[in-house]
Structure formats: C-alpha cells, structure tokens
C-alpha cells in the first residue's frame, strides 16, 4: 500500500471515530469559537472606526491648518489668510470659483437616543462651495440651509444616534435656536456624525472672525505639490498643508493604537488559552486511540499516516470552531452602530465584520489547531507498540 493511501485511509478511519469523542472534541471547537468571535469583534471595531475616519479623506483634497496645529480645533486662520489660500494655484475651479471651503468647527451637546446622556456633536460651518469640494455630500431629505438664517443640516448617522435633530426640530447653539432643515449623507464617514451650517452665519453667532481650517479640492492628485509649495513659501502665511487622507490617518492613529493594543492583548491571551485547550483535546484523543494506533503500527502502517490523521482532526475541529466563532461575531456585531467620543464630540459609525477579517480569523484558527495538534501527533507517532498492545 502506498504511503499516500495509508495516510488517507488512517485519516478517514480516525475522522469516523471523532463522534465517539464528542465531549472532548467540543473543547477545541468551543475554545476556538471563543477566540475567533472575540478577535473578530475587537478588530472589526478598530477597522470600522478607522474606515469611517479614513473615508472622510480623499487624496485629491488638501486641508490647510495653522502651522503647528495638531487638529482642526487647535487651528485658527484669519480672514485674510483664508482669502490668500483660496487664491492659491492647484485648486480645482467650478463655475470659475475655487472649490474651497473655510470651515469653522464648534460642538454642541445633545441627548443620545440610547441612554439619554448628553454627548458632544460637531457643528461644522461651511462655505457655499462645500458641494464642489465634497461631491460625496448629498442632501437626502429636506432642503439646503439658507445662508444668513439659523438653519442647519444633520448628518444621517447623527440623526440615528441623537434625539431632537429630526427635520423641523430646533437645537440650541449660541445665540438662540437653530432649525434643522435637511438631512445629508456622505457615505458613512466622520462628517455624517455632525451638523453643518453656513460658516458666515455660524461665525457671527459665535462672535468669531477666524475659521479653523480650509479644505480645497485640487485640480488633480499631482497638483498637491504646487498648492503646498505656493502656501508654505508665502511669507505672509504660517500654515501647514496636508493631503486630507494623511490628515485623517493621523487623526485616527491614537484611537487605533489604543484599540489595537487592547485587541492584541486580548487576542494573545485567548490564543494561548485556545492552544492549551486544543493540546488538551488532542492529547486525550491520542490517548483514547492508543490501542488503535498500536494495532495499525503493528500491522505495518507507517508513523506518517498517524501523524497526519491527528493533525487533520485538529485542523477540522478548529475550522468548525472558526466558523461558529465567525458566525457569532457576524450575527452580534455586523451592522451595529457604535458611538465613540471624547468630551468635545463623538462619532457614530457602522461596525462591519468583513470577509478579509473573517479570513484572518480562519487563518488564526488553523494556526491554533496546528500547534494544538502537532505535539499530540508526534506523541502518537512514538506510541510504543508492544507496551500499548499489552495494555489491551
């Protein structure tokens, strides 16, 4: 009998005997299901947050902040600087006007639907040209705000998460109440968790003259260098220019670091635990099969078939576990909307457990199954035939 056929027949015989060991086999399945479910949820959360933040940025847009500012809130640009920035070369033009918006960022506390607590939400004042800068921004209900009137648009995510921001409702910002006149969506990005209003109207209500940032749409990706050079070499300006993608990547870094670390710490511990559980299962599987293995060896089967049969059993059980774990993570978390925030504002995003992540989970399960099967398999290969048979 060829070595290959030996391996196949021993493995098949072994798999048929798994149902007799269902109790101990389920340990490996449950252990790995737990690991995969937890890891997929933690990393699904991190990835979804990152995706939502990154989706806000586009490589053909650039954001201008005061030099040295780390984010929009710590940046201020005065009116004359804004005019200079909007005149810079490299900005796309729509109907002869530069596609640029000077944004003023404020925040307002509103009640969350879920627990009735107050949480912050960004209120962004934008120029009329915002639609030319952000074509992904679409009004899906109601109408645009009228500059000069106290009117705001609410993002779809914000509308889902907060009370009192439906069309027709009024929110208390500075200087009175502002009416919600429309709902916008922008592909589930960070902006969707905010209110937007006319910058000039908002600035006058807040008695400010300076905006926080200027965002422009470039003629092309390549125009970034021209645009940046024009602004950073201008002696009257003291600004930093970044591609929007880079800006949002930097903004999401801190949260990613924290969640990534938590995910890794939890993952390492659970992975170790699952490896121990898998080892336990497979050692007892081997020990239950001692007679069978010794008999096979005595009638001339090689060690290879026995080793492979143990490894295949471990891997198959791990895959079943991975499938269950992935199903749990998917059913519990996929499509959930999650709110994360700090004292100033919060962000709502949809949690996704995507196929790439599922693939990682399966790989991880295989790795655990392999390690958990390897040592017991080696022991199985070394079963001393004579002693094992004497025990019959």
């Amino acid at each position, binding site marked *: 009998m060829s070595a290959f056929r030996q391996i196949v027949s021993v493995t098949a015989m072994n798999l048929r005997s798994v149902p007799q060991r269902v109790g101990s086999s389920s340990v490996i399945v*449950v*252990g790995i299901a737990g690991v995969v479910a937890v890891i997929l949820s933690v990393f699904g959360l991190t990835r979804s947050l990152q995706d939502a933040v990154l989706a806000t940025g586009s490589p053909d847009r650039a954001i201008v902040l005061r030099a040295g*500012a780390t984010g929009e809130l710590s940046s201020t640009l005065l009116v004359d600087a804004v005019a200079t920035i909007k005149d810079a070369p490299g900005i796309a033009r729509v109907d002869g006007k530069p596609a640029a918006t000077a944004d003023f960022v404020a925040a307002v506390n509103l009640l969350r639907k879920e627990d009735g607590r*107050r*949480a912050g939400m960004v209120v962004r004042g934008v120029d009329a040209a915002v639609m030319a800068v952000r074509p992904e921004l679409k009004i899906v209900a109601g109408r645009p705000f009228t500059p000069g009137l106290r009117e705001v648009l609410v993002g779809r995510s914000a509308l889902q998460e907060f009370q009192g921001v439906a069309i027709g409702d009024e929110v208390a910002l500075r200087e009175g109440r502002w009416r919600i006149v429309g709902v916008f969506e922008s592909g589930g990005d960070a902006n969707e968790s905010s209110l937007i209003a006319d910058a000039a109207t908002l600035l006058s209500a807040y008695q400010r003259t300076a905006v926080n940032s200027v965002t422009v749409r470039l003629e092309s990706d390549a125009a970034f260098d021209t645009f940046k050079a024009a602004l950073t070499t201008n002696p009257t300006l003291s600004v930093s220019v970044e591609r929007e993608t880079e800006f949002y990547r930097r903004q999401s870094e801190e949260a990613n670091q924290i969640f990534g670390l938590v995910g890794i*710490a939890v993952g390492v511990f659970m992975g170790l635990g699952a490896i121990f559980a898998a080892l336990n299962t497979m050692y007892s599987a081997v020990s239950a099969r001692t007679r069978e293995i010794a008999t096979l060896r005595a009638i001339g089967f090689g060690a290879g078939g026995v080793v492979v049969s143990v490894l295949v059993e471990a891997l198959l059980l791990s895959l079943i576990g991975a499938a269950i774990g992935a199903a749990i993570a998917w059913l519990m978390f996929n499509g959930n909307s999650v709110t994360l925030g700090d004292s100033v504002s919060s962000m709502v995003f949809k949690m996704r457990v995507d196929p790439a992540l599922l693939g990682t989970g399966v790989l991880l399960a295989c790795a655990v199954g392999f390690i958990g099967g390897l040592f017991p398999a080696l022991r199985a290969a070394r079963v001393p035939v004579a002693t094992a048979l004497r025990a019959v």
Partner: protein
Amino acid sequence: MKYLPLIWAGLWRKRARTVLTLLCVVVAFALFGLLNGFTAALGGIIDSMSDTRLRIMSRVNITQPLPLAHRARIETVPGVDGVSYYNFFAGYYQEPRNSVQTGAIDVETFDAIYPEIELDPSYVEAMKRTRNGALVGEDLAAERGWKIGDKVPLGSSIWRRKDGAEGWDFEIVGSYRSPSGRVPTSELWINYDYFDEARQAANGTVTLYFVKIHDSSRSAEISEQIDALFANSTSETQTQSEKDWLRAQIAQIGDIGFFVNAIIAAVMFALLFVTGNTMMQSVRERIPELAVLKTYGFGNSAVVGLVLAESLLLCCVAAALGIGISAAISPSIYREIGVGGINLPWSVVAVGLGLAAAFAIVSAALPALRAQRLSIVDALAGR
C-alpha cells in the same frame, strides 16, 4: 487536611492534562483580571470623586466659554460655600504634539475648594507674587524632571498673546501633591489673571467653574438652581457634581462595558467547557479506583468531597496565578493606553476567586454525582 496527598495524587494522575487545564484557567483569569480590573478601577475612581463639589460648564459644549460675571451670581445661590474657576490653556512644550496639561486658575479660591490637594501656603504666596508663576503637579514634575525655580516656555495650541509674542514663559514657583491620589497631579497650573490679561481673545471668560457645597444630598437641587440662573441667557450652564460628570464622561467613551462583558462571558463559557471536560474525563478514567476507595470504607460523601476538592484546588490555584499575572502587568498596559495609575482593585481579586470556586463546583458537579452513585460491584467488574 490528611486527604491532601490523595487529592494531590489524583490531580497529577495525568500530568499533561492537569498542566494544560491549569494553564487554560490561568490564561482565562489573567484576561478576566485585566478587563474587569479596568472597569472596576474606573468604577472606583467614580466612587472616590466628590459629590460636594459641582462643576459648571457651558450647556452648549465644553469648548464654549462662560463669562467671569457668572461668578458673583453663582455665589448668591444658597448652599454654595465657595466658587473657583479654571480655563483650559492647551499647552505644549517645544512642539505641539508634546502637550502639557495646563490650566489657568485662581490659586486662592482653588486651594480652598480642593482640600484634598496638598499645597504649601508659601507656594500660594509665591504664586500671588509671581505673575507668570506656575505650580507643577507631582506626577508632571517627575515625568518632565521639572523643579521649583525652573523657567518653562510653553506654547498654546489655542491661545495667542495680545502682544504678539510667540510663546508663554512660566516660572515654576511651587508644586502640589494629592496624598489620597484622588486628584491627578499631572497638570501645570498658572495664574488666571496673568493669562486672561495677556490673551488676545475671549477675555473675561472661563472654561469651568467649580463650586463647593457642604451638603451632598442637595447637590442636584443646587445644580438646578444654578442652571436656572442662566437659563435662556446667551451663556447657559450645565452643572453636575464631579461624580456625575465623570460617570457621564466614561459613558461617552462608548459602549466599553458591553464589549468587556461580552469578552469575559465568551472566555468564561469556553473555560467552563474545558474544566468541565477535564473533570469528566478524569473521573471516568478513575471509576475503578474510586470503587476501591469505597470498598475501603470511604462513604459516598467522602468520594464526592474528593472529586470536588480536586477541582477546587485546580481552579483556585490557577485563578490565583492568573489574577496575579494580571495584577503584575495591568499597570503597564493601562499606562500604555493612557489611563495610568490604576492598580488592580481587591474586589476583582475576590470576585475572581469566587468565580473560580463556582466554576470548580459546577464543572465537578456531574462527575461527582457519578462518583457518588457508582456501585462498587459494577465498577470493579468494569461494567
């Protein structure tokens, strides 16, 4: 106690299995300690926060300033013992990413309102003498190596100076400590008067007011009275006790508690499975041995006791090891994610050990029942 060697021998009958099960339980409880320790420590911080101190911020958002003129009106509210205020400075040292938590305060009223802060009266005097003086918190001083007499040039990512100068130069004239650990000492405090005079915008406003009251049971009522004073004005307020404020703050970080509990539940379920299975197997294999014990005159309850004791010993030792590991590594992990200074609370240790004992009993219950019911003749005959 005299049965200990017997229990010990039973446990080590299959060495590999016991060690692996032990490691599983160790890992599970290390994770339990880390996660639960974190939420419990946050809970502990909330409990230790004062509810005889109220915190007032703008109702619109914390980024909105409140006029300094509110102070006199707040002081008129019955039950209010003292008022102080605070303005965020958003300071950084050398470069913007190197931020230094800095607050502009009125040192005298602040000191009066925060009795848990240890501040030498001579430092208060020094602050009043030195306009650009600064008080450094113990932790901040240790972190940066700053000491009294040092000149510290800071930048602010929000505030510009009226005189057009680039940075703000402060001179450290004193330090403060918090012996109880209830107030973080990672901030630099500067004189509000000096700061307010020098800044270009928002003069005469503050970020927060702090109010001292003596009757914690009246905190909700006084908060409402204060908010009512400014209702429908251009600067409406939101007043909360420090405790409520922190609780809301933590809720705002997101649905952390749900995630933590879901993970712990998953881990514990898997654990129950693993230990339960080990105990089942171990008892099944030892049926003839248990029958021999019964033949020698061990009663039913003694045999059940042996099985339970084995399980208890395994689980509790492993849980203690796991929680020990989490206690050893948690401070550094928490520091890494930016919530330094948290130690594993004792309550978590106690809950963990209790949980371990419960697991041991649940997972040994079925095998123990089996051991109790076993009939000597059948077991010895291998039936």
